[in-house]
């Protein structure tokens, strides 16, 4: 398989293009994603290739078009919707949690809902409190929904492909601070297993760091800092929040005896608590210290650059959390 260096943004576009070529029942809807290629250019060129019927600009009506996606999914299509900022998931929350996530179950498992919600979230770009959330936790408790997080171009590529092929609703969270990051992508790879769960990105013996989205590169940077000081951290990208599979994490902690989770959201209600609780449950006797969690402070993300930077977990802060466990 050819490997190409792509940006995260290009990886998204490539995944969309290939899946839309592969399956004529796929289509994508969202605000200003047509001729303009999308506010974040994550649909660049799709309109030209697939036309307005399959690359569809919508009115500003998230409830309307996300609900419409459910109607499409129930009647033979495989819709993809783009939510421009993850923060706007709040506007169509009902359609997602009460409609999309529950429809199959309420039908007795007699309908399928092959539907992808791509949503672009995250802080660090000084967009203020209403345009910087990842939205990860809002739906963490919603059965019937799959939730995946793309931390790098190759993950964005395979996950999105797998999500589109999945017969269930999948929320794919992308991170706007990663859009221009580059990485090798194995173009044309079959996405089998891409939704299967956590992935070890760096092996280590002294501590396990689990991170999501933009915290993954920061966790890797923290591992570099730690390594310079003689501590070898294993870094895991959690990737799939729902259904959550912590077995690889538990296995890692049985080896390293220490766990630090890193997430770009407040501590209470975050996935780190679940990981910590499961690890404690499964690997209680292997832990040399209670799991630590590095999170956002418990207030909305501030606009001012100095404050936003201070709020976001830095590689130094992550490394410090690991050191504190040693």
């Amino acid at each position: 398989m050819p490997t190409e260096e792509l940006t995260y943004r290009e990886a998204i576009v490539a995944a969309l293009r290939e899946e839309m070529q592969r399956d004529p029942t796929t289509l994508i809807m969202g605000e200003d994603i047509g001729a303009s290629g999308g506010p974040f250019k994550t649909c660049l060129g799709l309109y030209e290739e697939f036309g307005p019927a399959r690359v569809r600009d919508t009115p500003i009506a998230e409830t309307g078009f996300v609900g419409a996606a459910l109607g499409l999914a129930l009647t033979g299509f495989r819709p993809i919707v783009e939510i421009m900022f993850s923060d706007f998931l709040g506007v169509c929350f009902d359609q997602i949690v009460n409609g999309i996530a529950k429809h199959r179950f309420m039908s007795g498992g007699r309908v399928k809902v092959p539907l992808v919600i791509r949503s672009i979230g995250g802080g660090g770009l000084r967009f203020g409190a209403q345009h910087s959330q990842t939205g990860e936790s809002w739906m963490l408790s919603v059965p019937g929904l799959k939730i995946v997080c793309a931390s790098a171009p190759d993950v964005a590529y395979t996950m999105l492909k797998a999500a589109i092929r999945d017969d269930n609703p999948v929320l794919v969270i992308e991170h706007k601070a990663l859009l221009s990051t580059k990485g090798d992508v194995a173009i044309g790879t079959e996405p089998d297993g891409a939704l299967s769960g956590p992935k070890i990105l760096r092996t280590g013996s002294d501590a396990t760091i689990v991170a999501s989205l933009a915290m993954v590169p920061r966790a890797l940077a923290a591992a570099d800092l730690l390594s310079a000081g003689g501590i070898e951290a294993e870094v895991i990208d959690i990737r799939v929040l729902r259904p959550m599979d912590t077995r690889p994490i538990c296995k890692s902690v049985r080896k390293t005896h220490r766990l630090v989770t890193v997430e770009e959201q407040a501590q209470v209600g975050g996935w780190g608590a679940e990981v910590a609780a499961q690890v404690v449950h499964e690997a209680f006797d292997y832990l040399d210290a209670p799991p630590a969690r590095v999170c956002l402070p418990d207030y909305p993300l501030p606009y001012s650059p100095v404050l936003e930077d201070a709020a976001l977990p830095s590689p130094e802060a992550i490394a410090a959390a690991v050191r504190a466990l040693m």
Partner: protein
Amino acid sequence: MAAPARQSGPSIMTTREQAASEVSSGGAGRNVRLTDENRLALYTMMVDIREFEEQVQRSYLEGLVHGTTHLCQGQEAVAAGACLALRQDDYVSYTYRGHGQCLARGMDVEAAFAELFGRETGVCGGLGGSMHLTDISRGLIGAFGIVGGGIPVAVGAGLSAQLAGRGQISVSFFGDGATNIGAFHEAMNIAQVWRLPVLFVCENNLYGEFSRIDHTTPFEDLVRRAAAYAMAAVIVDGNDVEAVHEATAEAADRARSGGGPTFIECKTYRHRGHSRTDPAKYRDPAEVEAWLARDPLITYRAGLEAAGVLPVGEADAIIESSRSRMKAAAQQAAAAAWPQSHDFAAATFA
């Protein structure tokens, strides 16, 4: 003060504006021919819906139906009339008060009862319940318990129909109260802008739960809301099953041939309370009485009898037979097994 310079819109606008002017009173020019057979079928379907709901009520009192249930006695003409205008491969979304639509689309009555009773043989295996009867094989894409929730979903099915290009349409049934929620508005706008083959059938029964429409809405003729989307719209006597059928058939024809969506307001009334616990004391007895006198089953029966379509006495036989069919189906359903409490992974994810 000069009018602001404006670019002229695309040519599609003209058609849209035309559509807006099509707001009319249903049944102006009966160009939809109904055979006597059709008429009998309409009457029989209304009787079936009525008898189904009455049986649900009895079963509820016997403890067989759980939680709550929202019945549609008095509104049978809307489901029966509208659904007769549909094809087998059309799509329908509806609400917690959707038993009528399910029956009018041919849902198996025993499976419906079994669902209401929470049994394994229920149309949703007992997982859905009274508010969530779904049968995708009949285009019954879903009953939505969140007010307005099903309207955008029907719009998506309409987009599906448009893309498939086989002349299907999608119909969304909802209540007067639902026209005050955002989902309705977003769905209407999208359907019109994309010229989707969607019929918005508003069952204006004058009440939300316990609030009369004038308490929550600036006027009673909800058809006026369609103008906000330049959508074709029609107001129809929702207790006149033929009028409903005709308005729906006309709108369906237009939608199938690319003419876009239509808003159909059906004036009707629910005979009972909002749900099982509601004695509906908040209604003016005179209002109730006036509407009971306009019971769609009584007026249609009288009309058919007068026209000689329904031999006098035959209606009683139809009612009797429907009643015993419903009773038998309910008995069968009540004898069915409870679902096994097992792993629901397969019901949750495909």
